[in-house]
């Protein structure tokens, strides 16, 4: 059997402020390579919190997290930064591009940080991704000049630049209209099918969730089987 790309074992998470409150209770699941998984549930059920833990950005949790056969529990912040850089791509609800740079530079940044290829090669690759996503004509515009849908596609291009194992999305279609949502979903689907990259998306859009290969439904900090 193929080893899962991401495995969560008995994840527990507490919020301490204002009172100790258990947000996640014994979350265990695994995601196999190349699958398109959505996590869904009502607001406040802990799905975003879970995603931040899975994304290694939140390290304050109990339990075990294994990404690509590597345990992430014992790693320090610098090592986690390297893992985020190489193996995880992010797409957020609010697109989060760096306004000081143009679109192309935004896409190139993670790859330049990784430093595996020359700047020219990275630029070429970034343009390739932008082209696939149909926004190569916007490459030299400033991030602030783009529409919401375009920004989200730039963010996806940035998430893909280092060929990560897994792309995570936190409500990536949260404030996009139906048309743009469909475009984004289509892109995710293509990535999943063509590149055999894993997609993990948190959403409370039932349409979006339903179209994924696998749906994980959460309620009150637990997974409903």
């Amino acid at each position, binding site marked *: 059997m193929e080893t899962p790309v991401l495995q969560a074992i008995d994840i527990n998470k507490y919020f301490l402020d204002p009172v100790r409150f258990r947000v996640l209770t014994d979350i265990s699941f695994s995601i196999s390579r190349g699958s398109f998984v959505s996590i869904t549930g009502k607001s406040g059920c802990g799905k*975003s919190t879970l995603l*931040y833990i899975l*994304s290694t*950005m*939140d390290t304050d949790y109990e339990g075990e997290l294994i990404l690509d056969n590597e345990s992430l529990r014992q790693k320090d*912040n*610098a090592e986690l*930064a*390297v*893992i*985020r*850089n*190489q193996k995880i791509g*992010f797409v*957020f*609800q*609010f697109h*989060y*591009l*760096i*306004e*000081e*740079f143009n679109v192309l*530079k935004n896409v190139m*940044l*993670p790859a*330049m*940080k*990784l*430093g595996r290829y020359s700047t020219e090669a990275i630029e070429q690759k970034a343009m390739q991704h932008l082209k696939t996503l149909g926004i190569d004509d916007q490459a030299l515009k400033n991030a602030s000049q783009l529409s919401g849908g375009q920004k989200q596609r730039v963010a996806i291009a*940035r998430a893909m630049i*280092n060929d990560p194992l897994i792309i995570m999305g*936190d409500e990536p279609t949260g404030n996009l209209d139906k048309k743009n949502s469909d475009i984004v979903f289509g892109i995710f689907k293509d990535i999943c099918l063509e590149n055999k990259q894993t997609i993990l998306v948190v959403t409370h859009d039932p349409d979006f969730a339903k179209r994924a290969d696998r749906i994980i439904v959460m309620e009150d900090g637990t997974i409903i089987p």
Partner: protein
Amino acid sequence: MKTGLLLNIALALLMARLKQSVVAAAGVTFGIAMFIALISFMTGLNKMLDNLIINRTPHIRLYNAITPSKTQPVNRAADFAGFKNFILSVKPKDEGKQLYNASRIIKAIREDDRVIDVAPKISTTVFFNSGTIQLSGIIDGVDVDLEQKLFHLNDNIIEGTIADLAVVSNSIIIGKGLADKLIVKIGDVIQVTTPDADIAKLKIVGIVQFGIAEVDDVQSFTSLQTAQKLQGKPASYITDIQVKLKNIALAPALAKEYARLFDVDATDVQTANAQFETGTTVRNTIAYSVSVTLLIVAGFGIYNILNMLIYEKMDAIAILKATGFSGKDVKAIFIQLSMVLGVVGGVIGIILGYCLSLIISHIPFQTSALPTIKTYPVNFEITYYLIGISFALITTYLAGLFPARKAAKIDPVVIIRGK
């Protein structure tokens, strides 16, 4: 490659808020420029004031003081031992003011490598005759070359030059006040009467001005040979030996050493001008405290602006961290950002500081104490420029360090969730 990337990001962040960055850099520039201009100007003035005294005063002066005999007869009487005896009946011996073996002493001191040079002097009081009135005055017989080398007498000679003393025989340079009273000018001949009632005629080759009326009214200079001739003394006759040291701080110790070694009296410049030392210290303290305050104020300005910048860039920091930049990278970005401001602001600051100093050094400034000085004195010492640029770099580094550490600690989740 990687550091290049971080610097690249830092520059992009700076360029995005160009106006703010320019203001921050201008803060550094202004601080450094003002520091350099002020310290150069203040130390220039201080140096000039110091030179008024230091240039004119020998660091050590060797002479024969006229003192009463130390062992008075009453002290020898056993009956009065232990009493406070104040009957001093034995007058000072007529040894004159001559220093014995002066040429040997001069030679010995000149070989001491703590010494710049030694100049002999003959000091005598005279009367200048003007009609029926006699004005009392002092004639210093000096070695023309050494006097100029050690005491820069030419700086105070408003007409003529000290070299003429050596060229024209029986010549004299007299004080401005004296010349005004006697109504004489260069080329005139004046008549002087020595303490031994000899009368001599001397030709005026220069007018000297120190800016102190008491001195200008009595002081005059002639050559060693003329002074010896005037008093009918042989060529070995010297009353003072003036020593200039490489390090003025050694003067008190060396004065004691020479006094013991050559069995003469010696005073050092610190003892002779105690009030001058205090003045210098006070002036320097003021100069440095003002300058340091300026630099610290500039430093706080940079700190504030960087702090604001980091709050504005929270989103960018969160993105950088989410996409794999570590806390260390983010910290490096903000420190580099700060240092860019420091380097640019600092370099422009020292250039501007130099220009300001240059302008100050061209502002007219007349003082009767130093007739040869026409503009404000400015001290163009490289040290101040080095201090300025180092301070710019250190403050911007520190001002950047604290906000940068804050940025490094920011948890991206807090920002992303906060939206």
